[in-house]
Structures are given as structure tokens and as C-alpha cells.
């Protein structure tokens, strides 16, 4: 396989991943804000929106696997390191946060959005550091 083909394939799977991510984000926003602003708490529409969001989420996972498969060995290593760090930070940070909620150290309930942000931020930092390390 020539490099042109590899670059072309890489571009294709990256665009595919971006499109699935956008689609998933839009469907998530619809499932989150739809009940209040569009279909006035109608349960049937809410279930439909959640099912669609979950199905698109499956597509997003598939697109991510395709993207990872297209990477070369160093790029895969950088991704694996970043995902490992994000997973570790997510589990340790998430459980600490949960314990803080149980022990009433924090005011209010522990929110899942905090965990998502923690995983995303640690993943992005680890990815940037990894890319710089092998530059």
C-alpha cells in the first residue's frame, strides 16, 4: 500500500470519526434538552431520543475503532498511553469524588459530567504530552 493511500485512508477515517462525534453530540443535546424545550416531557419521544442517541453512540465507538486501526504503531502507542492515563485518572478521581459525596465532604450530589470532563481533560493532556515526547 502506498503512502497516498494510507494518508487518504487516515483522512477518511478521521472525517468519519468527526462526523460520528458531531452526530452523537447533537443527538445527546436533543435527548437532554428535548423533553423540556421541544416535546414537553412526552415520555415516548424521550425514549426514542435516548434510543437514537445510544445507537449513534455505537456508531461512534465503531468509528473510533476504525480510526485506531488506521494509525501506525507509534501513533497507536501514544493513543494507548493517553487512554490508559485517562482511564486511571477517571477511576481514581471518579471514586474519590464519589466517596467525597458519600462522606458529605462536597456540597450537592456527585455529577457524571464531572467524570466525563476529568477523563476528557486528562486524555487530551496525556495525548499532547505523548505527541511532544516522540516529536
Amino acid at each position, binding site marked *: *500500500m*502506498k*503512502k497516498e493511500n*494510507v494518508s487518504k485512508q487516515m483522512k477518511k477515517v478521521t472525517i468519519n470519526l468527526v462526523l460520528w462525534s458531531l452526530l452523537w453530540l447533537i443527538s445527546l443535546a436533543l435527548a437532554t434538552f428535548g423533553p423540556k424545550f421541544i416535546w414537553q416531557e412526552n415520555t415516548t419521544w424521550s425514549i426514542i431520543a435516548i434510543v437514537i442517541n445510544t445507537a449513534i453512540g455505537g456508531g461512534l465507538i465503531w468509528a473510533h475503532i476504525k480510526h485506531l486501526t488506521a494509525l*501506525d*504503531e*507509534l*501513533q497507536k*502507542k501514544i493513543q494507548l498511553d493517553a487512554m490508559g492515563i485517562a482511564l486511571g485518572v477517571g477511576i481514581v478521581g471518579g471514586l474519590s469524588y464519589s466517596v467525597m459525596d458519600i462522606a458529605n465532604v462536597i456540597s450537592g450530589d456527585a455529577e457524571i459530567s464531572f467524570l466525563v470532563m476529568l477523563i476528557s481533560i486528562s486524555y487530551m493532556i496525556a495525548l499532547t504530552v505523548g505527541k511532544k*515526547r*516522540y*516529536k
Partner: protein
Amino acid sequence: MKNKLKVLRAEQDLTQADLANKVNVSRQTINAIEKGKFDPSLSLAFKLSKLFQLSIEAIFKND
């Protein structure tokens, strides 16, 4: 792991991008191997060995 990739590449007048094209990896990967920051897989080592018509041991040396 030390290697002679940079020398071999220069001998054949290849840029990092050219070499990357030939063995199907990114230019960043070739650069990281040359600098000794990343050890290639056996499969990539064989590709480089075949390309330069040298044994793997002739290209790569353990520290």
C-alpha cells in the same frame, strides 16, 4: 536501542517522509526511531531490513 537508520537513509538520499512512505508509517515514527525514542515492532524492523537489504542486527543494536 541504537540504530543506523539516519546514515542508511542519507546514503540512499531519502528524506524521512520518503522512508516513511516506503514502509507505510508516519514521518513522526521514522524521526522517533532515528532519535532512539521509539523501538520499532519486529514487523517494521523486517520492512526496514528488506528495504536496505541488511540484516536487522546490522541496522539495530541493543544498548
